[in-house]
C-alpha cells in the first residue's frame, strides 16, 4: 500500500478516536490498513433509529485520490442501498469524491443518507418504488429490518412477526421469506406465490 494512503488512514483513525463521536466507529480489521470495519448508529426520527449498522471499508492503493469502497454488512431496507448486497449509491463515493473527504465525513454522509433518502437515484429499484408508492409499507418494512438485522430497540410489528412465522413454517428460509414479504409490501399470498415460483 502506498505510504500516503497508510499514513492518512493512521491519522484518520487517531482523529476519529479523539473526536469522541459515539454514533460512528472505525477500526482496523487486521494489521492491514486497506481493510477496515465501520459502524454507524441509525439516526433518530428514522425507521433505522438506534440500529447498529456494520460497514465494510476497503481502501484502494490510490487513496485518497480515489474513494474508499464502502458497503453495508448489516442488511438494511433503504432506496439507496441494495437490500441484497449492501452496495451503496452515494455521489461522494463515486463522481463527487474529493481528496480532502475523510472516512469520518463518509460515515457522517451515510448517516445523513439514512435520514434523507434519494429515491430518484436508487440503488435498489424495488425499495425505491415502495418508498414512492407506499410510504406506509416502506416505513413498516424499514423499521422491522432495523429491529431484525440491526438490533434496533422497540416492540416488533405483530403483523410482520406473524406473517414471517407463517412463511417460515412453510419451509422457506427466514431471510428469503423476509425479503419476499418486504418486496410484496407484506401481502402474504403474493409473497408465498413468489417464493414457490422460484
Amino acid at each position, binding site marked *: 500500500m502506498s505510504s*500516503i494512503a497508510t499514513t492518512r488512514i493512521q491519522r484518520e483513525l487517531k482523529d476519529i478516536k479523539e473526536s469522541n463521536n459515539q454514533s460512528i466507529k472505525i477500526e482496523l480489521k487486521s494489521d492491514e490498513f486497506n481493510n477496515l470495519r465501520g459502524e454507524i448508529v441509525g439516526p433518530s426520527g428514522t425507521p433505522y433509529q438506534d440500529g447498529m449498522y456494520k460497514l465494510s471499508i476497503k481502501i484502494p492503493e490510490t487513496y485518497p485520490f480515489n*474513494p474508499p469502497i464502502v458497503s453495508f454488512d448489516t442488511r438494511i431496507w433503504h432506496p439507496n442501498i441494495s437490500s441484497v448486497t449492501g452496495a451503496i449509491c452515494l455521489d461522494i463515493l463515486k463522481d463527487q469524491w*474529493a481528496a*480532502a473527504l475523510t472516512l469520518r465525513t463518509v460515515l457522517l454522509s451515510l448517516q445523513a443518507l439514512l435520514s434523507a433518502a434519494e429515491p430518484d437515484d436508487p440503488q435498489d*429499484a424495488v425499495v425505491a418504488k415502495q418508498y414512492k408508492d407506499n410510504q406506509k409499507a416502506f416505513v413498516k418494512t424499514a423499521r422491522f429490518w432495523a429491529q431484525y438485522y440491526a438490533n434496533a430497540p422497540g416492540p416488533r410489528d405483530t403483523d410482520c412477526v406473524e406473517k414471517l412465522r407463517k412463511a417460515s413454517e412453510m419451509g422457506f428460509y427466514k431471510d428469503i421469506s423476509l425479503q419476499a414479504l418486504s418486496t410484496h409490501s407484506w401481502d402474504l399470498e403474493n409473497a408465498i406465490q413468489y417464493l414457490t415460483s422460484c
Partner: protein
Amino acid sequence: MASYFDEHDCEPTTSVHNSSRRTDLLRMLRLFLRSDVEEYGHILGQFIPDGESLAPPAAKSVVENLPRISLKDLDSKKDAQCPVCLAQFDNDDVIITMPCEHYFHMDCLLPWLQKTNSCPLCRFELVTDDPDYEELKKEKLGQKEREARVADLHSSMFG
C-alpha cells in the same frame, strides 16, 4: 446506478478508452443540451462506469502557474495542515496555493489535479484542457443565465 445494468441484464463497459468515451458522451450530451441539461445529464451519468464521471484534469499551464510557497509565507497559519495527507506543513515542504486560498503539499495536490480539475477541499474549478468539457460548462452557465433572465422578466411583469 448499478440498477440500470441489473435491470437491463448487461454489464457496464469498463472500457480502456474512458476518456474518449467520455468525450463522445459529452458530445452526445451537447446535442441534448438545449432541451434539458439536468435530465439528460442524469441519464447520461448512468452509462459512465463508477468513478469515471469525474470532471477532466486541470489544464497543465494553469497547474504550472499556481504559486509555490513555503511555510514561512504562511506565518498566520502556524498549525496549518495539508487537507490531503492530513500532516502538518513542515519548514522545507513545497506548498501550492489554490485560487480559492486553500493550501496543499505540492506532492499531494498534483496527483489530484492530474485526475480532475477542482480543489480537493471546496471544489473550486480550474480551467481544463478539454474543449468539450469547457464548452459544456459554458452551455450550462448560459442556461442558468437564461433561466435567471426569464425569472427576472417574470418577476418584473408579475412580481
